[in-house]
Structures are given as C-alpha cells and as structure tokens.
C-alpha cells in the first residue's frame, strides 16, 4: 500500500459518508458491515503501517497530502506522521475502537438511530485518527475539534431528552474554553518558531531555539487545552455529564480514546515540556489534584456510569501526573492499559444496564454475579486491573507512575503521597462498585430481576477480549518501546533501591482498598451507611461533586448572561445608543417644527429675518474684508 496513513484515516470517513448519507436506506445488515468493517480494516492497515515503520531505519513515515494555506515562503500543510508514539495511539484507537464498534451492534440493536449512530461513531474515529496522525499542530487541532463534535453529537444522541442535549452542549462549550488556550498556545509557537509541525517544534526545542519562558507559556497554554479534552480540574465538569450518551460511546470516546488526547498532546510535544520544569510542575499538581478529587467523588456516586466517569477523570489525573514528573512514556503506558480496562469496565456496565433494561442505579442492583457470569468475571478482572493488583495491567502502569512521582528528579514526596492515597481510593471505589452490583444480595425490582439476561455473544466476546488485554496488557513494555522518543526521567540519587518496597506498598494499597470495600459494602451490616451518616456533611459535599457545577453556574454563567442582558442590551444598546439616535431624531423633528412656525407667511417677518441675517453675516466676515 502506497499511502497507508491516508488510508487509515479515510476508511472511517468513508464509513461516515456511506452510513450518514444513505443511512436507513441501506438496511441494518449493510449499515453494520460498513460501520464495523471499515474500522476493522483501518486496524489491519494500521498494523501493516506499524510493521512497515518497524522494518524501516527508525525514521517516521510521513505522507504530505496538500498545502492548506500558503503564505509567501511559509505554508500550513496537511501531512500525516507515524512514529512509535503515534503508532501506539493508532493501534489503541483502531483496535479498541473496532472492538467497541462490534460491541455496539448488539447494544444498539433496534434503536431507530442505528445508522446515524454508526455514522457518528465512524466520524469520531476519522477525527481521532487525524488527531493522532497529524504532523502539524494544526492537523491535530482539526482532529481535536472534530472528536469534540462527534462527542457532542453522541452525548446528545437521544436528543429528544433536553437533559441529554444539554449535556452534549456542556461538553462542547467546556472544551471550547480549553480550546481557547490551545489556540493561544499554537499561536505562540507559530509566532516564536514559524512552524506548527510538531517534529520540527521538538527539534527546535532540542536545538535551543525556544526560550525557556516561551516554552513555559506554550506548555501552560496547550495544557489548558488538555484540561478541557482530558477533563482535568477545572474543566472536568463535562465528562460526568457526558455519560448521557450510549454506553459504548462512553467507553470509546469518554474513557479509552478521546479523553486521552490531552495526554497525547503533551507527550507529542515532550520537547517543549522538557524545557520547562515550571509547566511540568503545573501538570503534576493539576494531575494529582484531579486524581484525588475525582476519586473521592467516585466513592459516593450511585449511578454505575458516574462512578466510572469519575474514575476516568481520576485515572486521567494519574496520566497527567506522570507527564508532570517527566515520565511521558509512562503516561502513555497508563493511557494504553487504561484504554483496555476502562473500556472493559464501561462495556461491562453497558452489559449490566442492558441486562437490567436500562437501570443504572447501584442501589437497585446486586446479586448479578450468578445471573450474568461472563459480564461479572470480565468486570472483576478489569476492576482488579484498575485497582492495581498484580500481575494485571493497571498494576504495572500505576506502579511506574508512583515510582517516578516518588523517585524521579521532578517528583516529590507530596505528589507521591497524594498519588498513593488516590491509588487506595481507586481500589476502594472500584471494589465498592463490584460488590454493590454483583456480589451483595439482590435489591432489584422483581420485574427487573425476572428479565435479567446475559448479553449476546457479540457483546460478551468483546468483553472477554478486553478482559484478557486488561490482564495481560501490563506486559507490553510501552515505556521501553517509546524510550527513544520519550526518555524516562533520571531517578534522584539514592532512591533507586526503593523500587521494590514501593511496588509492595502499591500492592498493599490495592489490597487495602479491596478489604475496606468488602468491610464497608460487602457484609449484611453495611457499615457504609453508618459511616455516611457520621460524616453527613462530607458525604453531601461529595455526592454533590463539591458543588463545582453550581459554582460555575452562579459565578460565571449567570453573571455573564446578566451583564449581556441587563447592561449591554438594555443600557448600552437600547438606552444609550438608540436613545441617542432617537434624541437626535426628535431634536431634528422639534427644530423642524420650530422652523415651520417661522414660515408664517408674513412678509414683514421675512424682511426682518433677512436683515438680521445680513447683519450677522457682515459682522462675521468684517475682520476678513
């Protein structure tokens, strides 16, 4: 194949066009074949491209497609770029993406928007591939905005419900706030270096062409964009609401791929961040704070998808923490393992919701382990993986993050401690979920309980594959594979020997979370309720997600609308500008009326006026004569 990268990108676009334009006329089977077949094909082409990359001399594959905008000597080009970093991303996106497409066949069966669903999902894949394969920041931004659009459309997929449509809008606008930062960061880079091609930017940074202050500015501004897309504080608010979309969408877009775009962006521009310890510190602090904050909220949520959503926010925080301590390759590693186990968890949750006829409330579940065993086993594996139990995938990647937070040159004790507490909380809220949904006695309504059924094989098959990946994915040595591109930070002197104790400590944290969850939620006595009652205020704050939405509504949105309506529209536009105009108009009308009175037909009066005018004119011109 001559243009493998272009082919990878265009295949899902073709799927979007076919299903989007012809849609319902194709019939369910053809929609399915197109909607799932093209992503799978893209995955196969991607595998081929990566093999081609590995067979080569290590140089990246580049396909320059066309010049988007020429300006004299300079130009903004559209080019695709495959190196090991984008290779990892492309395989995850097309691989996990294809699995979720296949899962969707069963999940969305019978939905009236079936063709539209697959069209949107393929559109998402197209933009996501553009994002990870773009050579220039501009192409990445096109994908960045495009996945945002697909996310908007899919969150509001069931648009008859105003709440769902509103959730889509919230996601788009929150991301736009981040995008403003992204744009500014891009502008600074262009103004400083005259290029937006990321390999050139990294090379320029390595050559010392980028002053450290500029690197900090770029780093922080682009990270503002990343806080939007990757749901970091303070722009995390859209992700939990995004759960309004169909569950496979939550798995694909809002867990495995799109939300990791911010992490990819930073890793892609590692050269810039390596120049700026200040920007990296911002990342580390925001990342660990987000991880901790979201984990605490996840502890008390009762909607199964909301728990997973906050868990995603928290895990993204871990990735950003890894970026912040300079361990870019480790961040990508956690991105990959997270894609496996979180996709498995979301799809498992989807299977639960499917089995219960739409029920998402953990308080009305329980006892599902025997009823839907495949879902349970795969879910349990993924839960153990995210909790960090060895030898499952999450253990390896999270252990590495904690290690570099503790021992890396840019690490610090506080970062490590908060990270460790969060690791414990992760295990706690995940096993809480496992117990409440699967292991406690049933609290289902009888009519729901009567209809519980295991999902079709197209869904459980995907769950099994993802569970295997969650179990074994940790053995893929992603940081090592990427080390040429993303060197790992040096370990602070004297700390090298701490690695084994740390690993044991991390396992202890995970087991501690498991034990605590079993104690609090597993038995008949339910000490959890008592604890919640004792800490009622804290419980309320957590249940309400620290009231962040209310804060934004009260301190940003409402004042903005108030100023626009009461000040700008009513005072400035109507009172001042229109008032002035009306004033001028009535002045003109008034003076016209006065002049009309002068014209009263009396010749004598006219004569006087002529004389007065003449006299005044003479007096005025006198000095000039």
């Amino acid at each position, binding site marked *: 194949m001559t243009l493998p990268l272009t082919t990878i990108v265009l295949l899902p676009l073709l799927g979007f066009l076919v299903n989007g334009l012809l849609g319902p006329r194709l019939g369910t089977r053809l929609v399915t074949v197109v909607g799932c077949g093209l992503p799978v094909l893209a995955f196969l082409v991607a595998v081929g491209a990566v093999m081609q990359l590995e067979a080569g001399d290590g140089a990246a594959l580049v396909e320059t497609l066309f010049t988007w905008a020429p300006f004299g000597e300079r130009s903004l080009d559209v080019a695709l770029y495959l190196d090991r970093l984008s290779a990892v991303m492309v395989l995850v996106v097309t691989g996990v993406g294809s699995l979720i497409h296949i899962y969707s066949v069963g999940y969305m069966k019978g939905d009236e928007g079936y063709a539209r669903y697959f069209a949107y999902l393929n559109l998402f894949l197209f933009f996501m591939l553009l994002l990870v394969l773009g050579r220039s920041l501009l192409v990445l931004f096109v994908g960045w905005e*495009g996945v945002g659009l697909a996310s908007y459309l899919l969150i509001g997929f069931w648009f008859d419900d105003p709440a769902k*449509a509103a959730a889509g809008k919230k996601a788009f606008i929150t991301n736009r706030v981040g995008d403003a930062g992204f744009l500014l960061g891009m502008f600074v880079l262009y103004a400083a270096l005259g290029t937006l091609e990321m390999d050139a930017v990294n090379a320029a940074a390595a050559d010392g062409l980028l002053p450290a202050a500029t690197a900090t500015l770029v780093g922080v501004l682009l990270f503002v964009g990343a806080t939007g897309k990757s749901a970091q504080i303070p722009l995390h608010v859209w992700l939990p609401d995004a759960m309004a979309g169909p569950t496979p969408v939550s798995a694909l877009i809002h867990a495995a791929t799109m939300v990791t775009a911010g992490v990819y962006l930073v890793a892609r521009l590692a050269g810039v961040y390596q120049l700026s310890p200040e920007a990296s510190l911002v990342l580390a602090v925001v990342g660990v704070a987000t991880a901790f904050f979201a984990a605490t909220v996840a502890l008390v949520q009762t909607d199964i998808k909301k728990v997973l959503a906050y868990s995603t926010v928290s895990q993204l925080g871990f990735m950003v923490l890894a970026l912040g301590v300079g361990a870019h390759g480790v961040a990508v590693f956690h991105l990959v393992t997270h894609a496996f186990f979180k996709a498995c968890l979301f799809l498992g949750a989807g299977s639960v919701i499917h089995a219960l006829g739409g029920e998402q409330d953990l308080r009305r579940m329980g006892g599902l382990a025997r009823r839907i065993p495949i879902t349970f086993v795969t879910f349990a594996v993924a839960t153990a993986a995210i909790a960090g139990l060895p030898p499952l995938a999450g253990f390896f990647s999270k252990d590495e993050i904690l290690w570099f937070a503790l021992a890396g040159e840019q690490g610090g004790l506080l970062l490590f401690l908060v990270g460790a507490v969060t690791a414990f909380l992760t295990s706690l809220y995940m096993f809480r979920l496992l117990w409440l949904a699967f292991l406690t006695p049933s609290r289902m309504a009888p009519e729901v309980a009567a209809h519980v059924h295991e999902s079709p094989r197209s869904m459980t098959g995907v769950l099994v594959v993802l569970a295997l990946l969650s179990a074994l994915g940790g053995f893929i040595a992603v940081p090592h594979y990427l080390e040429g591109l993303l060197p790992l930070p040096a370990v602070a002197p004297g700390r090298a020997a701490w690695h084994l104790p740390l690993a044991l400590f991390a396992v202890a944290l995970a087991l501690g979370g498991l034990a605590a969850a079993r104690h609090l939620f597993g038995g008949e006595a339910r000490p959890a309720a008592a604890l919640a009652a004792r800490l009622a205020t804290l419980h309320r704050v957590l249940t309400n997600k620290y009231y962040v939405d209310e804060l934004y509504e009260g301190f940003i949105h409402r004042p903005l609308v108030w100023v626009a309506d009461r000040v700008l529209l009513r005072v400035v536009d109507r009172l001042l500008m229109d008032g002035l105009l009306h004033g001028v108009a009535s002045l003109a009308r008034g003076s016209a009326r006065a002049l009309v009175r002068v014209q009263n037909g009396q010749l004598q009066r006219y004569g006087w006026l002529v004389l007065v005018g003449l006299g005044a004119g003479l007096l005025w011109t006198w000095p000039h004569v």
Partner: protein
Amino acid sequence: MLNWVLFLPLLGALGLTVVPAHRNDLTRGLTLAVMGVQFVLAAWLYGQFQAATGALQFETRIPWIPQWGVYYHVGLDGLNLLLVLLTAFLGPLVVAGAFSAITTGVRLFYAMVLVLQFAMVGTFLAQDLFLFYVFWEAMLIPMFLIIGIWGGERRLYATFKFVLYTAFGSILMLAAVIYIAYTVYTATGVPSFAIADLYRGGWSLEVQSLLLAAFALSFAVKVPMVPLHTWLPDAHVEAPTAGSVILAGVLLKMGTYGFLKLGLPMFPEAALLFRPVLMTLAVVSIIYGALLALVQEDIKKIVAYSSISHLGYVMLGLVSYDLMGIQGGIIQMVSHGLISGGLFLMVGMIYERCHSRDLAHYGGLARLLPGYAVFFMLLTLASVGLPSTSGFTGEFLALLGAFNAGWAELPHATWPLALAATAVLGVVLGALYMLRLAGRLLFGPARAPHLPLAGLSRREGAILTALVAAIFLIGLAPGPMLEKTEASALEIQSILNAARPAGGTP
C-alpha cells in the same frame, strides 16, 4: 467580460419591465437566469484571474466626466475578486430563496434585487473614487425599498434607522471625497479620482486623520462596528429573508472592504494612528456581538448579532497588518457571507412554515424536519468555526495573523498582543450562543407553532447544498483562493507598513 458581469443584472432589471406584471413565474425565471449567468461569468473570470500579480485585471477605463477627471474605471484585483464571486454566488440563491416568500409586487421586488446586485458588484469593482461613491449610494435605495415594502411590522422604524445611520456616514464620506478631489486638483492641476493614485496622496497627518475619520465612520456604520451597530438587528428583523441575506451576505462587507481598499491604504499614516482604536473596537465587536447574541429570543436577532461578532474578526485581521491576518480577513468576509446568508435563509424557511421567529416556540426540529436539522447543524458548526469549514479558515487566520503581528511588536507595544489574545474569547462565546440556538431549535421535545411541517423542498435543499459545499470548499482547501488574493494583500500590506517609523516590525 467584467463589464458583462457588472451590467447583466441592470439589463435584467430593464428586461423585467417588459414582462407582464402578472407573470410572476416568468419574472422569477428571468431573474434567476440572469443571476445564474452572472455567476457563471464571474466564476469564469475567477478561473482566468492570474495569481502572480497585484495589478488590476480585466480592466476597463473610459472617461465619464472628463472635466472633473472622473472615469468609468473597473477592474478585478485580489481584494475584490472573492467578494465579486461571493456576490454573484449568493445572487441566484437569494432569488431562488424568495420564490415562495415574496408573493406581492413580485416584479418590482426582483427588479430591486437586480439593481442592488448591480450596485454591489459596481462598488466592489470601482477603481475610481467618484464611481465608488455613486455605486455606494446607489445600494441604499433598493435596500431601503426592499425593507420598506416587503418588510415586517416595524419596517418603517427599521428603514428609518438604517437610512439615518448610513446617510450620516455617507455625508461624511461625500465631504471627504470632495475635499480629496479639490486637493488633488490644486496640487496637480489635473482632476483625478483614480484610487490607485490616491494611495500616495501625500496629505499631512492632520488632514489624513480628518479624511480617514470621515471614511472610517461611514465604513464602521456599514460593518457595523460597535457602537455604531444598533441599526443592524432592527434592519435584519424587519427585512424579508432576501433582504437579510443580501445585507449580511454582501452589504456588510462593503464596510470592511472599504477599510481594506480605501480607508487604510489611502491614509496610511492616519491609519497607523487610528489602529489602536480600530483594533480595540474590532475586539469589542467580537465579544459584544457574541454576548448580545447570547441573550436574544428572536432567532433572526441572534444571527444578526453574530454578524457583528464575526465581522469583528475581519477588522481584527485587516488592522493586524500581517499578511496572514489580512488574508484571513478577506476569507472571513466570504465565509461570513456564506454562513450568515445560509442561516438567514434557514430562518426564512422556518418562518415561512410557522410564522414565528421566537425561539421559545420551537424545539425538536431534528425530529420534525430531519433534513432541515442537518443543514442547520452544519451551518451552526461553520458559524462556530469548526475546522474544515470556512468559518475556521477565516477566524483562525485572522486570529493567528493578529497574534503573530502582536508578538512581533512585543518589545515596543503590548496592546496588539493583548487584544489578539482577548479576541480568542470570541471562540468560546461563539460556541455558547450558536449551540444555545441550535440546541433549543433542534433538540428536546418536538414542537412548533404550525404542525405538520412540510419537509425541505427540492429548491430549498439545492440552495442549502450549494452553500454548504462552498463552506466546506473554503474550509478544506482555501489554498487556491489565498494564492489569488496574496499579491494584492501584500501590496496593501506594504503601503500600510511603509507608514511605520523605521525600526518598526516588518
């Protein structure tokens, strides 16, 4: 050939006089044909246009009033090329769009549309200041009639406001034109209105400032720039759909084009002096327009205020003095013409069905009119500036240019950079008001004042398809267009930069 493009609509208007008054179908068909041919010719000229030079092409120069030095002088350059193409492209769409909406006084209506088309193309093509002024004023009359006769309930108030504002600007411009003619005559002994000669007018800074102030006020009313904008929402709301489309699609660009072609390069020293004010007002317009669009309940007003915001980007790009910014400004003019033209057409389509522009009356149109919803969403996304639409190309280049220029000026001046950075807020606000509009109109429980709704007709579908295709073309491949406009943009840029003190930035 260029003269054909210009005069064809006028001939068409004359031709309409021999069509029997009751033959509405014939009137519509003839007008559509004239506009269609004009577009084909304009597209052919666009294809033939040579990119390498900033000189005038397809030029015609004939003495008109020789004793005053007035010439009929028209020609294409990189500055007006795309705007003429835009005007010719929108022409047939406006005509076809009005087929079902205008049922009384059809012949007069289309005659006015054709005359307006003539005057607008003439304004863009004029290379003689006198000729420019004549066409400029000539646009006012048919627009006045279109709003005044076929407008809504408060059309008289709207036309009054529209005329008062524009006439105010025009008088100042006329005074400036007369003064310019007088000084040229006294200085050289030969009267001349040739715009190219006026670029090197050689007036003192004081005189330049007064002249630019006069031109700038006139142009700023047309753009419109805050605070001279309050005529626009009223004019749009009361105008029939065709009037709104022409107004937003083309007329507003007269203001920005005026700055680019006349205001800035004729008085470059004064322009440098005015630049902080103009740039500030551009950014204020971006944000102010967006905020006001956010609190409107009338669908048309939302689109109207969005125009103020979007043309702010044009002005920002132009006064950045950066090549990318100027080019972005030009693209943004075209893009806004397509997007807001399309949005106004779509508002008209729903108004024809339901006789309401009140957002509160609607919901769930995605359920009731799926085809309509798809097009409305596409236009919304273009308006929001999503990449791969023209809205992104224009906004992005204008902002990048402004930022680039501001960065380069950094040691001396921080305000250009600060303003460019502030303008980026418009990207957020744009999403806020457009998604509010689209969300309330298209999503949620389905309702509309008149049910059931007829789906999009083939005519409506064709109009919208053409617009959306153009929007994506400029979004995906603006390269060829930028190449054709670059030489002229560079020329303007070099005139503007020549006024800068030595040691200033390139």
